[in-house]
Structures are given as structure tokens and as C-alpha cells.
């Protein structure tokens, strides 16, 4: 069970993500963005939070054109698992692996606090450990987490059960309260909240741990 965590200049949650994945049982390799290839036998690619390339141009835009990202897109298109958190979610939308875009928060403020979420999908390899409608609390820390997609895309995401999490109290203006979305095959998850910051009792929350344990369990069962 192997995971690669991609490190961009400006990533700042890469080591936290690696710790959370190791706790769940993954062998984790850190991969610099200039590499062209992923290590062999990778099951999961993690795109961490942070401010890759200083958020220049658009959040995640320049990271999404990094050499390693071609390999990440190929991994996703082969049916491989990808988890993008915060800046990682922004990068996933910039690559087109996930639909929509993350815009400036409605109130124009950077928001850093633990927020209540509602679990909306319980069939993916990331979310099957939760129950439908489960209330969980996960920290957010972003300036650009306001999810936007065309109305027909939003309808499709909700209709196909691809909205993984919604905000119980919308903090940033995200359309239809979306906090995280899945790819059509359910193997790519992008989310603004940080489950790796709620994966250890010392951090004041364990609700994020279930996501990593569920993911590890799905690989162990496969």
C-alpha cells in the first residue's frame, strides 16, 4: 500500500499529510514536483495543502502545469486514486481531473477554523467509513475555497452522488455548500477542509482520521 505525496514550492501540509497516511498504514514517498515520473507501484497520490508558487496567477494554476502533474493526471486517468486537499483540490480543478473552480471566499477573508461538515457520499473508497448525513468537524484554512461550477455541472455532481462533503454552515460562499467533490469513478477526491489536521487526538479532533483509515481499508480489501 504505497502513497506518493507531491511537494511543490510553497506546499506546507505535505508532511502532515504524510504523517496521517503513515498512521493509516501507507508507505509514503515524498515526490518533488520537478520529477517526471511517480515511483513504481503507487496506489494513492496525495496533493497537499499550501500555497504552491505563491498562489500566483490563480491558486494551483502553476502547480497544475508542473512536470510531475502529467504523471498524476495519467495515474488518475488510469483509475488510480488521488486525494487533493485545499491547494491540492485547487490543483485538481486546474488540471481538469475534477470539474469546477475554487474562487476567492465570498467575504474576501482568509478563514482558518474548524467547521461542521455533512457527509454526502458513503460509497467511495474515501468515504465508505462514514454514514450518510454524518456530521463531522474538520478544520478549513483558505482564502480561495468558494466552489464554482456551471448549474448543469452542479446538478450532475449532486445527481451522481459525487458531492462528498457539504458545509453545514457555508463559510465561504461555495455553491450548494460544496466542500469536497469526487470524480465520476469515485477515485479522485478534492476537498477544501483538512482531514490531516483532524487525524490525531493531540490536534484536537479525530474526524479526519476515518477518511485515511477507510482509504487504507479499501486497499487492504482489494
Amino acid at each position, binding site marked *: 500500500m504505497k502513497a506518493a505525496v507531491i511537494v511543490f514550492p510553497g506546499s506546507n501540509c505535505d508532511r502532515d499529510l504524510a504523517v496521517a497516511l503513515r498512521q493509516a498504514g501507507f508507505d509514503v514517498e515524498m515526490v518533488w514536483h520537478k520529477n517526471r515520473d511517480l515511483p513504481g507501484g503507487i496506489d494513492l497520490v496525495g496533493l497537499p495543502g499550501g500555497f504552491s508558487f505563491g498562489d500566483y*496567477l490563480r491558486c494551483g*494554476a502553476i502547480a497544475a502545469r508542473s512536470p510531475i502533474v502529467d504523471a498524476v493526471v495519467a495515474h488518475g486517468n488510469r483509475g488510480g486514486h488521488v486525494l487533493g486537499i485545499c491547494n491540492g483540490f485547487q490543483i485538481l480543478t*486546474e488540471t481538469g481531473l475534477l470539474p469546477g*473552480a475554487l474562487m476567492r471566499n465570498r467575504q*474576501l477573508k482568509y478563514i482558518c477554523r474548524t467547521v461542521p461538515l455533512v457527509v454526502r457520499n458513503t460509497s467511495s473508497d474515501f468515504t465508505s467509513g462514514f454514514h450518510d448525513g454524518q456530521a463531522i468537524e474538520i478544520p478549513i484554512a483558505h482564502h480561495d475555497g*468558494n466552489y*464554482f*461550477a456551471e448549474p448543469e455541472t452542479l446538478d450532475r455532481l449532486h445527481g451522481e452522488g459525487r458531492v462528498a462533503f457539504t458545509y453545514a454552515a457555508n463559510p465561504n*460562499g461555495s455553491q450548494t455548500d460544496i466542500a469536497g467533490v469526487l470524480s465520476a469513478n469515485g477515485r479522485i477526491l478534492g476537498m477544501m477542509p483538512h482531514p490531516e489536521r483532524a487525524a490525531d487526538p493531540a490536534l484536537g479532533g479525530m474526524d479526519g482520521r476515518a477518511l485515511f483509515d477507510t482509504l487504507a481499508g479499501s486497499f487492504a480489501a482489494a
Partner: protein
Amino acid sequence: MKARVHVMLKDGVLDPQGEAVRHALGALGFDEAEGVRQGKVLELDLADGTSEARIAEMCERLLSNTVIETYRVEIL
């Protein structure tokens, strides 16, 4: 040669920054400013003979996010 690329949010996409600027203009008494949209301008120094198709490709692949933005190229 030079080109200037204007990137704007699509109509219908909420622009909270433009809205904040509009609000500030109103606070200064410019009540006639009924709407503000904020965009970006990028100036490119290009090798002579660069085709417009090539510039459009730059816009599509990096300079704009066509999910939320439109772009307009001006050859200078």
C-alpha cells in the same frame, strides 16, 4: 512583438473583489458606479511572427481558467 491579454471573470460568475471595490466607490460618493468587475492584464513579449493561434493556446492552457474566465488578446 507584444501582446496584451485581458482576463475577466465570465458574466454570471460572482466577483466578490469587484463588488468590494464597487462598495468602496459608493462610500466615496460615486453612486453612479453601479457595478465593478475586476480582471487581470498580462503583457507578453513574444518572438516576432508568433501566431494568434499560439497565443490563444497560451490563454487556454495557462493564462486563463476557461471554467470561470474569458480572455481577449490585443496585439500591440
